[in-house]
């Protein structure tokens, strides 16, 4: 494993963990439910994608790319869908 790949991978993972921490911070500090959903759908997805990409950089075997890529894809799809569905419910039933 080359030094460049190690450094790049670690930096990407660090950035990803930072995104995840910011997502949690956003969920905590943002003023209302609908804006909090942004933390769930965007910062979260970006954070996990960066972590997966960094782990792929650190990995020796190309076989690790498939589960990591699928992981990032699934989290992106489910985060976005669940965020959308929750927002849709809130719009319909504001008092819920």
């Amino acid at each position, binding site marked *: 494993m080359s030094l460049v790949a190690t450094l790049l991978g670690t930096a990407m993972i660090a950035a990803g963990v930072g995104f995840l921490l910011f997502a949690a911070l956003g969920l905590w500090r943002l003023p209302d439910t609908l804006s909090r959903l942004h933390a769930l759908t965007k910062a979260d997805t970006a954070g996990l994608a960066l972590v997966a990409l960094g782990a792929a950089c*650190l990995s*020796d*075997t190309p*076989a690790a790319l498939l589960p990591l890529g699928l992981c990032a894809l699934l989290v992106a799809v489910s985060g976005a869908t669940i965020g959308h569905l929750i927002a849709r419910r809130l719009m319909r039933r504001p008092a819920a």
Partner: protein
Amino acid sequence: MTPDLIYPAAGAGLIGLALWRLATCGDTLRRIMALNVLAVGIAMLMLAAGRETLMLAAGRETSTLAAGRDTLTRAAGQDTPQTAGAGFLQAAADPVPQAFVLTGIVVLVAVTAALMALAERLGARDGD
């Protein structure tokens, strides 16, 4: 507190917490949930008990550790595991309690579903 006691302490704490809630709480759903927490606590004690050494941060390596890591790396088709950051490597848990806990989890979800069906029927009768 040494690392070997972290998980057993958590398991014992979970058991105490669940028993306390089971004794003091009148709500059905919460009681079923306390039952689930109790099962987790017992499983944690069982899995933590059957281990040679819990943590190998100091770099000690045992036969079980090697076997456990072999199991994990063989799945990826690797011959030798990478050695970057060995701090999180740990011994594999005893397979017999692992099998018990595994069947326990599946049985518990079935029991939870049955209890929930019972609670919903009772609740429905209450409401009518």
